[in-house]
């Protein structure tokens, strides 16, 4: 059974602006106590479109059972990080830049489970062409 990963962002609507502080809570449920071997939380951007996918990690945190009291990685955990000036969220014709918070849980027997929580960086829709704007809606 897949673990249930919950992510909550604060003040992220309609969009974060460069320099804003991203505050995030995450929690892992529906999994036995000793099942999780490590948890990685990251704030990252990635590209999507015609080209190969690029990824840029802005914030990264890896936790092991030895790093927490009682070795339980399931309880609620918070982190915060100031967001950079770029790249801003963008929807173009052959290139899209997405931002997200990603929580990845490493389980026993090499199993993994992750969840993305997308958000927008930039207080406007960064598409200079009308098609892009229409595509965002």
């Amino acid at each position, binding site marked *: 059974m897949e673990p249930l990963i919950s992510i909550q962002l604060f003040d992220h609507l309609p969009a974060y602006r460069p320099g804003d502080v991203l505050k995030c809570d995450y929690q892992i449920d529906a999994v036995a106590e000793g099942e999780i071997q490590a948890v990685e939380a990251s704030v990252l951007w990635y*590209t999507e479109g*015609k080209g190969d996918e690029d990824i840029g990690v802005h914030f990264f945190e890896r936790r092991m059972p030895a790093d927490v009291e009682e070795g339980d990685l399931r309880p609620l955990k918070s982190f915060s990080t100031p967001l950079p000036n770029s790249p801003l969220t963008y929807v173009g014709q052959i290139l899209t830049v997405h931002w997200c918070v990603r929580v990845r849980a490493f389980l026993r027997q090499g199993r993994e489970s992750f969840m993305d929580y997308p958000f927008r960086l930039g207080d406007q829709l960064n598409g200079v062409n009308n098609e892009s704007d229409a595509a965002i809606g």
Partner: protein
Amino acid sequence: MSRKFRIWQKKRGRRRTGSPTAATFGEAAIYAGMLMAAVAALGAVIADRVLAPADARLPLMGFWVATVVIGLLAGIGATGLISRLWLMRTSAERRGALAQKAAGIDLLADQLPSTRDFPSIPRDEHLINSPGTNLKYRLPRSSTLPWEFLAVGVLTLSWCAVLGVGIVTATHTSLVGNWRWPLIMMMFPMSGIAFWLTYRFLATLRRVTRVGPTNVEVSNQPFVPGVDYDIHLSQAGRILLRSLKVTLVCDEEAIFREGTDVRSESRRVFEERLLEMKSLEITDDRPFSMKCGLSLPGNAMHSFRSASNAIHWRVVVEGLPRYGDRFERAFSVLVHPTRVNNGRS
């Protein structure tokens, strides 16, 4: 992950028909095979040196050459195997974070604040280190003409050299009574191609010599959406132009792999005419010079560059001569996001 194994795979956006895990596993298996073969071969070479009778051994030089070659193969196999195992055991985010950390210890990083303040926006040193005479900065030109000129020149000379050898050979053999008709007949189409190439070469040469340097200067850099800027264009040379256009363009560029091929694609997503002049006569003592305004849309995306994707802004100057081919010269400009924040990430 794909349900069925396929030799030919497809990619659309983020979706692929193949499994990256299976691909990494396959690569690891190849490297492991290479390492095992190299170790076995090395063992055989050393055993031959130690155990074989003296007259049946490899010569000393051959032994060392074989040892070095097999050792290199073993090194490649071991490095590849370790890196693929590392890939299988770490997440993309962790690898990205390590790469980011490694980039952060660049000794020059402190002297290049723009890269840290604006991640994934290209460095702007070369765009602002050339002061202008009419406006603040002169833009560097992303030139294509010298390469075209060189390519056409080399091709024309090579073709003419081959044609020359063919003509001399055909003439020489004909004079001694040995008519080589296939060679003689081949000279006619080759001569036609040589004439066409020479015409192209002369046209390019004329364009190079008649169209003088193009200078574009801007009132400030980097550009910020929603702000007005001035642009100054100066075009020198000796030429009659039907039209001269200045355009601000934004291109998305993508690099992607299809099997072992690396391909690229570009898509123009924005184009705005800044200036258009008709029927111009440019002379040595009277270069064309004009100033115009530029304003980026408020929702314009900033310049962007990552390993396989980019967004480039350029000022493109396009001329259509009364005689000869059109010419185009592009000048890169840098666009930063609207909201400027000096807090470092």
